[in-house]
């Protein structure tokens, strides 16, 4: 993980390439995060790829409800030579959840991006095969958003099975 200064330097470097690409930085105890503008995510990833962060370790979707913009996509990048990690975060609103795909730079992002699309409804423009991956294809809604209920059903026991609406017929 780069230290706070290193993170700022990386951010400056990226800003030199494109003024709007980096919106800010976050630095925590064990974590350096670059806040990228959604449209410039591939650019940021490509520059970081050139700097040695060639391995996309993970890609998560996060719902920051009630903050706005609500949805976040996080790219955990890894430099295997220097054993160094950096994260790229981008935030999109639920009204316009579009992020360009990272599959051209990291082919391994295909499944994780589909999962984020499935669970949070973030559309990755340019993804080769963007459809639901974990839920059935006719499922409606994005179940891991914070405003989606956890769900669940009453459990059937012998004493209540006659009264339960879900009785097997």
């Amino acid at each position, binding site marked *: 993980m780069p230290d706070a200064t290193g993170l700022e330097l990386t951010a400056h470097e990226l800003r030199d390439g494109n003024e709007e690409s980096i919106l800010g930085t976050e630095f925590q105890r064990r974590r350096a995060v670059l806040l990228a503008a959604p449209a410039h995510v591939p650019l940021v990833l490509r520059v970081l790829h050139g700097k040695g962060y060639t391995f996309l370790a993970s890609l998560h979707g996060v719902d920051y409800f009630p903050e706005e913009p609500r949805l976040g996509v996080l790219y955990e990048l890894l430099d295997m030579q220097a054993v160094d990690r950096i994260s790229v975060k981008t935030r999109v609103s639920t009204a316009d959840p579009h992020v360009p795909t990272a599959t051209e730079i990291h082919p391994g992002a295909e499944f994780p991006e589909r999962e984020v699309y499935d669970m949070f409804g973030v559309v990755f423009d340019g993804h080769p095969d963007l459809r639901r991956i*974990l*839920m*059935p294809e006719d*499922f409606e809604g994005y*179940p891991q958003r914070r405003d*989606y*209920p*956890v*769900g*669940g*059903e009453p*459990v*059937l026991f*012998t*004493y*209540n*099975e*006659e*009264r339960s609406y*879900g*009785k*097997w*017929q």
Partner: protein
Amino acid sequence: MELKREPLTDPSEFRARQLQSRDLLRGDLEGEALERYVEKSIMTTTLEKAVSWSQGNSIYPMTFGLACCAIEMMSIVGARVDIARFGWEAFRASPRQADLLILSGRVSVKMAPVIRRIYDQMLEPRWAISMGACCSSMGVFNNYALVPSDKFMPIDVHVPGCPPRPEALMHGILRLRDKIQGHSPDGWRERYDAVGTEEVLDGSGASRDDAAINLYPGGDTAGA
């Protein structure tokens, strides 16, 4: 059906019995000797009982695993809790050849239609064990993704646990064997008066649809 074994006390008696059997096969045994022989060595029972006895001792479970419980289900085939002792070890990969479906793990909304289809493909007589908390009651994950198995197919034995120990599954299997052999009067088949998985309706003239709506007009069957 109960078998009673008598120990042979006298070694020479064994030889005598052998000779007697040989005589019978030759057709030499006649009259009172034949009567006595038959009385001694033939057991009478009903065909139904004999069939259910053999069914209970030769179940073919299906090779079907869903999640964590599948690993524990595999371990009952292993050396410690050897399921082969009960004649249930011939796991079959095709539902057409299997008579027991062990639902081992959590059933998601995506998997439920598949399981129902597999169950429908199995031939009668067929049984189902719901292994573990997830497919009986959704266990700790009572959420949007799961369905309990009772809501889409009939289950004969529920084995609790998360995951159940192999011994617990073995107990469930032995309970199912008792049920198949007709010793155990509990379960949905008796409650609904069902044979196989088709519901048989009591009362004359009642159509299938009527009964499906009101199977027990008397009211609640809690604790029945």
